């Protein structure tokens, strides 16, 4: 049976009810990490600030908090201090520490800070979960151990949060939508695609300038230009747009399902980076992976996703390319409508493709090629489980889903996937073991 986010607290309650001897400290530590991450997948969905780039950033820091807490305890692990941009290793603790308790306190502090914009219900859920998990983790431990472990966890979290505060992405105003944006000067420039008033300005035009985690700069994985803008029938650009029209016209049920499965709309889902986080959580749960492996994977996946959005956004606003719906209505079919709602920012490259490529690169490095898994991300929303033979198979499907949904040209998806491969390689190269 798969546990869904809806059951997080139910599971937490069951977890709390289990006898002390039934769960080893390593298992308990893993359950604590998984439970907190399941909660944040809900908080992301229900907190308006968390557009995909902002969500990826928060996931990234949370993953690093998780790993660094263990690295401060376990000499077999390597801190990411000195490997991530501007990050120094937190102080290690040589006295006995309980990892489950330390992780709980680290994550409780970090979640509250990184998801602070959540509303009163989210705050309430945080408080309830913190109380339940904390009581369970600390049960039967000596007070001295509890105090030392809690202090370590809180200290690591505060160290991380101080670092996070300096990256340029900590403050989000107006849900990330610009308050001003240049009037289009070229025919290929991005234009708003919806009649939602808030979407008349694009999302996070400065996001490409914030400090990356693992890659050297926002432009470290630059992409080559898209096909030259051309309105002439038969031109490469025109044919790319025509393909979007023809795909929609001949869309199969399976393709429509794929489009919706990877739609991952903000505020209606855990967002695209949350989708990949959900995949990792499911695998960790299914395979009972060690908490050390899980923590390292969370850190590297989080870094890859956060960097993917920085790289992608840097390129999006450098190219500032219009969306298919704008071009198609101008030059092919004035009444054409895509299957999915077109996101309110430029097309090139596809953000989902970039971050899916980065995620696949990292997860393949951790779990290997041809690692099959089932994806339960949207079961609560009535979408089926999808099975994949490998992470790259999933990433490639995610990229194609944007063509099926009518919100990207094929070339935007392909460039995004390749950009993601480059971004992911930086995160995959991070050393998490000594």
């Amino acid at each position, binding site marked *: 049976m798969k546990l869904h986010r809806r059951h997080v607290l139910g599971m937490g309650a069951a977890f709390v009810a289990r006898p002390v001897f039934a769960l080893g400290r390593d298992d308990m530590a893993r359950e604590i990490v998984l439970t907190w991450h399941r909660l944040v997948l809900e908080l992301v969905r*229900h907190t308006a600030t968390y557009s995909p780039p902002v969500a990826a950033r928060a996931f990234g820091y949370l993953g690093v908090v998780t790993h660094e807490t263990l690295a401060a305890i376990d000499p077999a692990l390597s801190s990411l201090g000195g490997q991530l941009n501007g990050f120094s290793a937190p102080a290690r603790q040589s006295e006995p520490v309980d990892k489950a308790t330390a992780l709980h306190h680290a994550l409780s502090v970090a979640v509250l800070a990184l998801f602070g*914009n959540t509303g009163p219900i989210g705050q*309430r*859920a945080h408080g309830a979960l913190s109380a339940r998990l904390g009581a369970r983790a600390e049960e039967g431990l000596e007070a001295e151990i509890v105090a030392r472990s809690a202090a370590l966890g809180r200290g690591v979290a505060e160290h991380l949060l101080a670092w996070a505060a300096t990256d340029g992405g900590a403050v989000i105003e107006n849900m990330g939508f610009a*308050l001003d944006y240049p009037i289009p000067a070229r025919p290929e420039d991005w234009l708003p695609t919806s*009649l939602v*008033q808030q979407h008349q300005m694009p999302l996070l035009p400065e996001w490409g300038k914030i400090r990356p985690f693992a890659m050297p700069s926002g432009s470290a994985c630059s992409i080559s230009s898209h096909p030259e803008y051309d309105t002439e029938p038969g031109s490469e650009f025109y044919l790319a747009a025509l393909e979007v029209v023809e795909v929609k016209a001949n869309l199969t049920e399976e393709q429509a399902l794929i489009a919706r499965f990877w739609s991952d709309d903000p505020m209606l889902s855990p967002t695209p980076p949350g989708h990949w986080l959900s995949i990792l959580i499911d695998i960790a749960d299914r395979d009972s992976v060690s908490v050390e492996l899980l923590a390292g994977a969370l850190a590297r996946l989080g870094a890859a996703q956060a960097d993917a959005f920085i790289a992608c956004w840097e390129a999006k606003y450098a190219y500032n390319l219009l969306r298919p719906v704008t071009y198609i209505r101008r030059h092919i079919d004035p009444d054409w409508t895509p299957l999915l709602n077109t996101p309110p920012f430029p097309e090139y490259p596809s953000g989902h493709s970039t971050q899916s490529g980065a995620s696949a690169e990292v997860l393949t490095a951790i779990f290997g090629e041809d690692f099959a898994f089932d994806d339960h991300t949207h079961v*609560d929303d009535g979408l089926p489980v999808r099975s994949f033979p490998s992470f790259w198979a999933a990433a490639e499907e995610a990229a194609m889903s944007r063509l099926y949904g009518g919100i990207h040209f094929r070339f935007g998806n392909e460039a995004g996937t390749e950009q993601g491969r480059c971004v992911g390689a930086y995160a995959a190269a991070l050393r998490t073991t000594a």
Partner: protein
Amino acid sequence: MRFLAFAAALLALPAFAEPVIPEFTDETATAGLWTVYDGDWDYMVGGGVAVFDCSGNGFPDLFLAGGAGPSALYLNRSSEGGPLSFERSDAITLDAVIGAYPLDIDGDGVIDLVVLRQGANRLLRGLGDCQFEDANDAWGFDGGDGWSTAFSATWEQGAEWPTLAIGNYIDRNEDAFPWGSCTENWLHRPDGRRFGPPIALTPSHCALSMLFTDWNRSGRPSLRVSNDREYYKGGQEQLWHIEPDQPPRLYTEDEGWQRLRIWGMGIAAADLTGNGLPEFFLTSMADNWLQVLRDPMSGRPEYVNLAFQAGVTAHRPYTGGDIRPSTAWHPQFADVNNDGRLDLFIAKGNVAEMPDFAADDPNNLLLQTSEGLFIEAGERAGVASMGISRGAQLVDLNLDGQLDLVVVNRWTQAEIWRQTGAPAGNWLQIRLGQDGANRDAIGAVVEILRNERLESYEVTSGGGHVSGALGWLHFGLGEAETVDLRVIWPDGEAGAWQEVAANRFLILRRDAAAEPWLPE
């Protein structure tokens, strides 16, 4: 594709004539309403007001939800055209009240009250002279044990009693993890002169507004449900077939219904386009929605959103300096300045302390221009309250022909404004009456022919945000001194056209000439 013509007309108008700005005077301090919509997280939605004449003197009385605090019935002691004055009554002492709607359920000519609550909902039978008795048991009504946040009523074909739809919100026992815990909405169909067991309207997606509306003028109202995406999983806005003697059935994408997922909080309906069919305004967070049928001739419930073109997105505060997005609750169309054009009021206020949304979120008063656009006039009209508003009603409380305003606020006293400016146009207020069942003719359509334009108004029970009224129907007439008027009664029978003079109260009964009525 008439919507396109409507949209094109909106877009083609760079300039417009300024409508008359109504003038409101805040009489909160003196009117005698002291109710606060109070409570913790389990009262984060709700906060309604029911407007109806329980005394029989023609002046609307008010029942205000108090949430975790006391609710109260206020008897209207205002005089015609005078300051607003209310006296609190102890006739209704229910607690845990979310909202309420007036309705003559048993057809005895005395208005009853449907009270939505945390816990069992209550049907209060009106006894006259503003006295009530609990009728749940006598009427076989299962009040449930939920968190009820939406209501609408209709009389199905041939039924003596109404069918009640009640929307329920999240499971309040899931206090720490409520997401995905939406509870069942219920349909209470009559079984003779009482109610049968409730029928689940599943899937249910945390309804915050419901409205029976004959959206296609088929003679059989459907049920629109606006749902809060904050808490549902796999949900969307809904439209239900409600056919006599048939189980409820959702409209499907094959029938034209399109998936829309918003923080649905309130429904207002009115025929803005003049095509005889209602348009729907849906409140949400950030942008709000104005839905117009894509092709009225198709018979398909396929709507396009024209809020942007019409100027009613009302997505962020227009005054006060808070740039964060708004949170909208009760919407209501009414002709506030009597210029013959429907305006739009929207109650606004943060859920509680959601950091991403405006804390200072003024209520909107959007006035319709002669070109069909809407402009914001809340501040100039004097109703730009920064209270954390929820339910509301625009209603003529002192029977001077001009609409007044009452707004329920979370954690602070309800507010009330009297419209005090000089009349900007003529008006008409009517009550419908018929013998037997459905005495107030819920489901009727009032048609007014004015300046060679046919206006139609569907008489409904429900919608808004847990707030409703039953009583005088107010129509602004602009400069018209007389209009032609008729009623399409709920069974489809069309009454005769009558020429009526402006600026008066009329009672319209079937097969009878309009009866004038004067306030005493």
